[in-house]
């Protein structure tokens, strides 16, 4: 703030000719308005003139739109304009019919969101029933889930995680904002507890019995 203290720096910055912050805010507004997909600060800055501070401009913009009919929302590490939730009723005409998800798909999605990264075997253990290929495929196709890193356990099973599209669809800033996630974790319901008596070492990939797994340590966050 105090220019006197760092005259060198200020002089150097001015060489970049970054537009005033109000102008930068207009730019971020225009860019965010123009797109459907959320945009990261990095992308914003790559499109703005050199020396712009996308994050600061965005912060100003967010403030300006507080309480308006549209808002600046965070989706993962990206940002987008979205209509205010209380005005959804005005947009009936814009409503897109989403394919109705089966109960299995909804549960599978919730399990992936709350337990991610999670393997298919773990999903099956939680649901107590096998997960059909079609269910996973449907969620992948909707781009609500994607493959995560492989588990470093025998067979190196793939894991599933939710996508930014998922966050965007459900209006979540990130997976930590999932409804009730804190309470569930506190209640220990996001752990995979081993079946008593099952040996941690002789855990096998095929979980034909309900809950033979011991992968507690694998469930990060």
């Amino acid at each position, binding site marked *: 703030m105090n220019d006197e203290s760092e005259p060198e720096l200020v002089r150097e910055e001015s060489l970049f000719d970054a537009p005033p912050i109000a102008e930068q805010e207009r730019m971020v507004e225009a860019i965010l308005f123009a*797109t459907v997909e959320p945009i990261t600060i990095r992308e914003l800055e790559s499109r703005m003139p050199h020396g712009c501070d996308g994050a600061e401009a965005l912060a100003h913009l967010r403030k300006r739109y507080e309480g308006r009919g549209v808002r600046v929302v965070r989706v993962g590490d990206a940002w987008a304009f*979205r209509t205010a939730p209380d005005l959804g009723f005005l947009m009936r005409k814009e409503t897109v019919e*989403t394919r109705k998800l089966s109960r299995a798909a909804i*549960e599978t999605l*919730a399990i992936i969101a709350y337990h991610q990264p999670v393997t298919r075997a773990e999903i099956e253990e939680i649901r*107590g029933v096998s997960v059909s290929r079609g269910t996973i495929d449907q969620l992948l196709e909707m781009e609500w889930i994607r493959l995560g890193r492989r588990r470093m356990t025998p067979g190196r099973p793939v894991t599933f995680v939710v996508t930014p599209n998922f966050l965007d669809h*459900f209006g979540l800033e990130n997976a930590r904002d999932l409804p009730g996630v804190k309470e569930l974790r506190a209640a220990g319901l996001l752990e995979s507890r081993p079946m*008593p008596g099952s040996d941690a070492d002789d855990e096998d990939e095929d979980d034909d019995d*309900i809950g033979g797994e011991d992968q507690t340590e694998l469930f990060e966050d």
Partner: protein
Amino acid sequence: MMTEDLFKDDKQNVEDRLAAEALIVDVDGFEGPLDVLLTLSRTQKVDLRRISVLDLAKQYLTFVEKAKALRIELAADYLVMAAWLAFLKSRLLLPPDPTEDGPTGEELAAHLAFQLERLQAMRDAAARLMARDRLGRDIFARGLPEDVTRVRTVTYSATLLDLMQAYARIRTRDEFRPFVMDRDSVFTMEQALERMRGLIGFAGTWTDLTSYLPDGWGSDPVKRRSATAATFAASLELVKEGKLELRQNETFAPIELRRRKDER
């Protein structure tokens, strides 16, 4: 309905009977034994953490018995669960056997209760998730997005050397010509093919491939190599066309060819 008649003898109260009936009738609608257990546990009307697993096990076993009586085919995992619950039931009822290691009935029961609670928690979470304000239903994205025009500026690079070499290439095209004469000792596959086509009519018996080399190409090693390769390639081509047969008795043995009798 049939089921109603069958349950008439039961001494259960109406509510339980209806619940049990619904279970039987909808057995297809269940998503596995854990789902059935969760549904059964609701009849206990207590917090899942305080559920009586023993009662639940009994209820489940009754459910399986009834399904059997009704000749409803239960999937294997329902029966596996029944067997496990029968085992759990006996563990819970009998005093612990000090000589046996392994988990106690209580530990197993606690684990089952945990699984049920976790499944229920996930179902509740799923419901809360689906009830959120959703994009395209309650919250909307920009309807008229303005496309970002991708302006691709292509800069072409060329150096002075490129330029001069290009010019040199054109100016000295004649000087390159003698280079083509290097192909003197190259026998092309096309040439070999043409030659072979004329000769195979006579190849009734197995003949060494090398005997098909053109005259004067056998002595100079460079020429021989090229002619052999071309002739071999041409032979393969003719085999492909169904005109020739090739054989080689062992590795590095002479390759022999003859005309195919039943020429395609």
